[in-house]
């Protein structure tokens, strides 16, 4: 296969605009799957992806396509057989790095936009990425079968905002198949063939890696220059390790072995690589015997933005938790973890995630794949602490904050965020953003009735409740994208939560002084509902240093009596009491107060009420 017969592209879009469904269509149309094998979002192969109906990991497939230019084709290409390498990407903001990686292996993208919803936050964010990478963008207005579809308007919006000519947009329905042939023709006609030197030294980009239960680690790579043959001894340039390419090939969508892969092709390599951490995504593969002169620039590693602790829940031990985390980490390098100890919760792990959804997914996968219980602390961001001597320390948990008289300043991460919202909600969004310490930048009009509001936000507010509140004040219409822009100093304080006078380390927070009382009140109101009454009054307080900003009391238990117990009830009663006693045992003792695990979880809930 010659370079000019190859097309490499990704499908990018806002979440749920139909990327995976379009991929299904393309697979079917090109005969990669038969009608019988067809199922919705076939490339989403993780259980969790199928259950949640979203793509978490980018997926790829190689397609054969027999191209014949249409009679009225403006830029007809040479008729014949083409090899299409498709990458379906996730839409959610937490997985932007997956998109960035995918784009580095492509010359073009299909930018999908839902014809009823129009441009959303991740439409813009992903489109900008494609523009920055200099990729050809084919606009596909999807879901035109929907009654609310307004494809012409959406095409015009795209032209106005991104400068993508409206008359070139393809109107399609991934669901019914309308427009799919047009899309395939556009891929051949408009996306440039890869450039590379088929005769040069092997240079291949590792843009992803995945665990295959049977064969170990598969490097997903794109061959830039040269040729890779089965049996070649290869070298991972940054890692400095060599392996033998035992098995190479392409995804159709199942892995299909080939004797060789050439410049321009996208495929996989198994080389007896043990763990996913032996592979740096973005590394360059070359031949050990004839290495290329220079490695590819590679990628920025994904940046963890959200941190929380995982502790073993009831019925799970610390070693079990560690083992499960290691197991999962071998499959997924997108999170990190390190041991941590809490006086309240014992030995656990501080974990870093790409975002809240990612955190939930990892927790869910841990629990279901290893059948363990996880107690999770409230998510937080990382802070930069400037110590009196000028030294700067990164902390990923409020518990790590040094004594305040050693601290000169605390800096928190900020994100630049773009919020797309119908004009009638502008007021509500601005008010909310004000309350959540947003710094207004500007307003861009998408159309007469939709705008992009640009704000800088403390990341901490975004992960606390900004996003949920945003959805609720805009009746679900707002979408939002954000990216990290750096750390800024502010008046941040440590909020300690004291139960019966004793601080509970796992419940502490770092918050802005202006928000401390509000957060403290909400947190202890929740705790109050979770902690059972004791024989004595249990005060719960939120305090900054020695100053109490919020307080509640769990009144002492007065009555806990079984009124009736006669002959028939004796053993039932004993068993009931024993069960209650077991429940008590599972609780964490903080001084003389028993706190159920659920209390630590309840404080995660930032919703009102």
């Amino acid at each position, binding site marked *: 296969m010659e370079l000019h017969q190859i097309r490499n592209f990704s499908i990018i879009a806002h979440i749920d605009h139909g990327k995976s469904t379009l991929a299904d269509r393309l697979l079917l149309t090109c005969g990669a799957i038969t009608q019988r094998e067809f199922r919705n979002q076939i490339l989403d192969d993780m259980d969790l992806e199928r259950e949640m109906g979203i793509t978490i990991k980018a997926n790829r497939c190689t397609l054969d396509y027999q191209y014949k230019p249409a009679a009225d084709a403006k830029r007809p290409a040479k008729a014949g057989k083409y090899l299409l390498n498709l990458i379906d990407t996730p839409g959610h903001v937490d997985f932007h790095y997956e998109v960035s990686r995918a784009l580095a292996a492509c010359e073009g993208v299909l930018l999908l936009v839902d014809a009823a919803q129009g441009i959303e936050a991740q439409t813009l964010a992903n489109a900008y990425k494609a523009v920055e990478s200099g990729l050809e963008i084919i606009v596909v207005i999807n879901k035109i079968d929907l009654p609310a579809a307004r494809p012409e308007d959406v095409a015009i919006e795209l032209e106005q905002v991104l400068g993508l000519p409206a008359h070139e947009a393809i109107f399609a329905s991934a669901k019914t198949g309308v427009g799919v042939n047009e899309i395939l023709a556009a891929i051949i006609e408009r996306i440039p063939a890869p450039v590379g030197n088929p005769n040069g030294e092997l240079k291949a980009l590792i843009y992803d890696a995945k665990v295959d239960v049977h064969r170990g680690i598969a490097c997903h790579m794109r061959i830039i220059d040269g040729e890779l043959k089965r049996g070649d001894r290869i070298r991972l340039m940054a890692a400095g390790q060599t392996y033998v390419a035992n098995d190479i090939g392409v995804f159709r969508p199942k892995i299909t072995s080939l004797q060789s892969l050439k410049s321009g092709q996208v495929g996989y390599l198994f080389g007896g690589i043990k763990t996913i951490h032996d592979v740096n995504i973005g590394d360059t593969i070359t031949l050990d015997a004839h290495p290329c002169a220079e490695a590819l620039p590679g990628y920025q590693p994904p940046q963890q933005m959200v941190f929380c602790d995982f502790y073993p829940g009831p019925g799970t031990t610390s070693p079990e938790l560690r083992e499960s985390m290691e197991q999962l980490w071998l499959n997924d390098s997108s999170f990190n973890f390190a041991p941590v100890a809490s006086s309240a919760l014992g030995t656990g792990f501080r974990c870093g995630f790409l975002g809240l959804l990612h955190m939930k997914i990892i927790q869910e996968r841990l629990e279901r794949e290893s059948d363990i219980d996880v107690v999770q602390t409230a998510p937080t961001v990382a802070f930069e602490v400037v110590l009196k001597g000028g030294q700067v320390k990164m902390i990923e948990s409020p518990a790590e904050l040094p004594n305040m008289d050693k601290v000169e300043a605390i800096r928190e991460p900020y994100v630049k965020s773009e919020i797309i919202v119908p004009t009638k909600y502008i007021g509500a969004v601005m008010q909310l953003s004000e309350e959540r310490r947003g710094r207004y930048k500007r307003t861009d009009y998408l159309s007469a009735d939709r705008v992009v509001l640009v704000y800088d936000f403390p990341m901490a507010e975004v992960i606390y409740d900004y996003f949920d509140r945003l959805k609720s004040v805009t009746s679900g219409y707002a979408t939002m994208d954000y990216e990290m822009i750096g750390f800024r100093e502010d008046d941040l304080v440590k909020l300690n939560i004291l139960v019966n006078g004793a601080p509970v380390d796992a419940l502490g927070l770092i918050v802005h002084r202006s928000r401390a009382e509000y957060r403290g009140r909400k947190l202890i109101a929740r705790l109050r509902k979770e902690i059972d009454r004791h024989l004595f009054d249990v005060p719960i307080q939120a305090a900054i240093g020695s100053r109490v900003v919020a307080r509640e009391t769990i009144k002492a238990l*007065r009555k806990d009596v079984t*009124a009736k117990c006669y002959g028939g009830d004796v053993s039932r009663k004993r068993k009931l009491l024993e069960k209650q006693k077991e429940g008590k045992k599972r609780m964490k003792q903080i001084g003389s107060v028993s706190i159920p695990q659920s209390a630590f979880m309840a404080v995660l809930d930032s919703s009102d009420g």
Partner: protein
Amino acid sequence: MANTNENSTIGIGWYVHLPFCRTKCGYCDFYSLPTVSSLIPDLVRAIVGEIDLRMPNRPVRTIFVGGGTPTELPAENLDELLEAIGRMAGAAVSEWTVEANPSSASDLKLDVLRRRGVNRISFGAQSFFPEDLAVLERIHDPSHIPESIDAARRAGFDNVNLDLIYGIPGQSMQRWRESLARAIDLGTDHLSCYSLMYETGTALTKFRDQGRVTPCDESLEADMFEATIDVLANAGYVQYEISNFAKPGRRCEANLIYWRNEEYLGVGPSAVSYLDGLRRKNIVDVRKYVNWMAGQPDDLVVESESLTPMARAAETAIQMLRLIEGIDRTHFIAATGFDPISLFADALSETTTAGLVEITPTHIRLTRRGLLLSNYVMRAFLSAVEDENPTRAPTQQFVTLQIEKT
């Protein structure tokens, strides 16, 4: 049959369960169902047959015929049943109670009871206010209560109990005190005052879970409990168990057997027995029960559990703690083989420090505050036994439960 020494521990108790009621009350989790008249003759026969088969060769000290509503049986069936019970139980019986509802005890039936030797009657009065009775879904009217007590007195009962309930949704302290006052005025010999319990599976619990019924505030309920103790003490009733109050000499012997974890035979559908260290439960469904004689005697049993010495000690302790006198140390050692002071050492130190339990030279008992928090104390006692150190009970399993039939 005069009341003999209340502390007599010779002989066992018999309990007979009659499952029929006129309608089902919303809070009730006893096995009871609306009367199925066609089953009554067979039921009487099956019960008499069961007693005949299972009665141990031991003197019978008390009989308690409960339910359900035993007085729902027509007079002639009631007569037949009581005659047989009395005959088989023999002459040692000192207390024989039958439960009745204020609207179900006709003069005719009361005469039957007296003639067959019943000497104690217990009415499910619950409240003297129609609002409360409506929430409880009781069918009687408050005026039925004095009427049936009068009738019982006329029939010759000198030992009458009323069951009362407090903590009913909507009930005020005032209204509860009023119910108590009326019960006292009626000269009742014994009062069982229960706080309303939300048992799983009952209609009332469902209503609560659906938010259609708002349970009484915990602190009001505690106040009502304390008021009960004080009001009844002033009126000359002695509290001898968490929920039970008696004029002198009128404690319920049958129930004392349970609270001392002594042995009893239970017959009838769903009845539980505790004999020779074995706790067993009868088949529940009355239709299956009436046919038991057609099958094997074992078909009667749905659950049986043989208590290890340790489990027996634990149950004995939590039952005896219900008594105001508490755990009689000597009695406990004789019954279980364990000295409670050492067996429950940790629990005792915790609960005495918390002011819930006090230790006298002869007894371990709940304090006033402990009465209100008795479940807390009982859990502590159960923990002590479970965390049992091996030197105290080298080979004992805590409990073995075998479900033999379901």
